[in-house]
């Protein structure tokens, strides 16, 4: 888990550089709230050593925008640790990714408070694509919300998380299969939905790889070992599913980004995927 925290550092640094010190306040609030909730649930500080609560807190903090109010941070962290993790039996027994459950809960409960507005350019690129009326992709992409190859600012955040993710693969904390399949899922779906720039198109695969929470989700959230399948077939289906679902939510719903819901939906299928994988190994 120390490796995961180290791998998150470049992403946190870019976040702070782009959105200011408030990001640190949000991340600090979610992390401390997650740690306190962990102690309250286990009634001991022993389980803090595994680092899972810290990582949950950090991930929620990174998902929430810098302008998030403090109590929203608390609610997200408490729901993540107390309900999504400990109510299901603690580390190793949770069905849903705790960080995504906490984030999705506040996303649904306080949509106006957590939908991200970039401090520089107003609405983010994904936000503009989701609520743009009938403008074509070319007209939208000339606005300030778009960067050199991805969404403005978010491309650098995604790049930082990509570097952190490659570090995790290099130190063998995660296997490359799962994040690769998430990225492939996004890429394939984006390619199929991309009709060359009409008013319903949603950008190229490259744009979607470097917009929103793609890299954070692919390398840090979907790879949670507890809530992902442990066999190869399961991993491929699970990860492609997350990528495809996230892309479909980006395009066809009013939510600008869909990773939280995509991960939670895919979590539902993990017991089934485990079963498919096991029958395959026992018959072979």
């Amino acid at each position, binding site marked *: 888990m120390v490796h995961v925290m180290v791998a998150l550092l470049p992403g946190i640094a870019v976040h702070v550089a782009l959105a200011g010190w408030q990001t640190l306040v949000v991340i600090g609030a979610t992390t401390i709230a997650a740690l306190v909730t962990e102690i309250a649930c286990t009634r001991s500080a022993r389980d803090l050593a*595994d680092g899972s609560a810290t990582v949950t807190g950090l991930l929620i903090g990174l998902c929430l925008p810098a302008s998030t109010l403090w109590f929203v941070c608390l609610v997200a962290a408490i729901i993540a640790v107390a309900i999504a993790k400990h109510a299901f039996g*603690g*580390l*190793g027994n949770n069905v849903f990714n705790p960080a995504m459950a906490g984030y999705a809960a506040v996303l649904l409960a306080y949509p106006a408070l957590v939908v991200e507005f970039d401090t520089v350019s107003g609405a983010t690129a994904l936000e503009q694509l989701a609520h743009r009326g009938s403008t074509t992709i070319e007209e939208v992409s000339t606005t300030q919300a778009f960067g050199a190859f991805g969404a403005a600012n978010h491309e650098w955040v995604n790049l930082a998380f990509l570097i952190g993710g490659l570090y995790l693969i290099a130190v063998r904390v995660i296997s490359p299969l799962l994040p690769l399949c998430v990225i492939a899922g996004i890429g394939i779906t984006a390619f199929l939905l991309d009709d060359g720039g009409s008013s319903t198109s949603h950008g190229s695969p490259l744009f979607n790889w470097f917009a929103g929470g793609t890299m954070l989700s692919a390398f840090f959230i979907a790879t949670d*070992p*507890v809530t992902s399948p*442990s*066999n190869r077939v399961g991993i491929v289906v699970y990860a492609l599913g997350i990528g495809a679902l996230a892309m479909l939510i980006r395009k066809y719903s009013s939510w600008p980004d869909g990773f939280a819901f995509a991960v939670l939906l895919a979590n539902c299928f993990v017991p089934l995927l485990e079963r498919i994988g096991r029958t395959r190994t*026992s018959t072979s």
Partner: protein
Amino acid sequence: MLERTTRPPPEYEPLDWSSAAPTSILARIDEAGIVGMGGAGYPTVSKLASGLHYGTEHVVANGVECEPGVHADRSLMRQHLSQVIEGLHIVGHCLGCDQLTLAVADRETYRIFQSSDIADVKCEIVSDHPANGEERTLIKSLFDQTIPPSAYPSQHGIVVLNVATLFAICEAVRDGYRPTDRVVTVLDEDRWVDVNTSLSAFCSDESQMRLGSVATGTIDRGDATIDLTTNAVAHDRGKLTRACIHCGWCDDVCPRSLPVEAMLRSQQSTSPQDDLEPHFDACFECGACVVVCPSEIPLLDWIRQGKLEASARRLKQRALKRFERRNQRLTQHLSEETDAREARIRTRHEW
């Protein structure tokens, strides 16, 4: 590094093995009480007698020491390579076989072997996967030959002996020593240890000790002693154990492709799954799963427990079946007796 404590004087007459008959060499190995020092403890004389009976094409010195954190055999080979090779020659002479192979997993030993100009022994280097030290896996990677589980390799013309066993054979045959000590990796440091040394001699504090490597050893219950098969002594890391996070690394790394995680879950739950029983028996305790586990769960302890429970369950089922058959027999006997008596009564009435 390797200081040998004073040993009792040789118990037997030194033997000129190059002119001795195989039977006298076997007799010496038998009376010296040499057993497989790689861990199995199989009587070496039985293995060699089987090799002699079935005919042997290859003798392999197994220096592939792949248990995590164990390097006793490696140290032995670095210091006493000539005796190990002589032991290999003795076995080759005894079995009438000149295809001698030394298998190692580390480059350093390989290099030492190459620079020592031994002509009639082949040295093979294999990868250091935790499973490769096991003899069937080793035979598979050296000769691409699969030994069926029901047979011993010696029945298929291949005799595999651990390098420490070969060293003991050399000392017993050439010099007349009975093996009373061996190299053991004690808390990551190799040294000569006398057999029957208590494990508590190495323990400085209250922590639990493991007889064997940190991954594959068994927990000391206070009465464990070093014997000829012990290759390591380690501290238990049990206090660091955390919850299973279902990462599946143990399943991926298992050389037998066993569902390790499911086996752990079955053992930890109150109702063990019966269909996992053959998997427990198939585990040969290489410890690869323990090494990769990010939560540092002593998986092998759980699996050994599962093995014991499985065999206890089988014994119980057999006893139950026996009991049921006996009951059936008794009731049948009783009913036959009753029938006979009734028949007798009836006939008397008629009479």
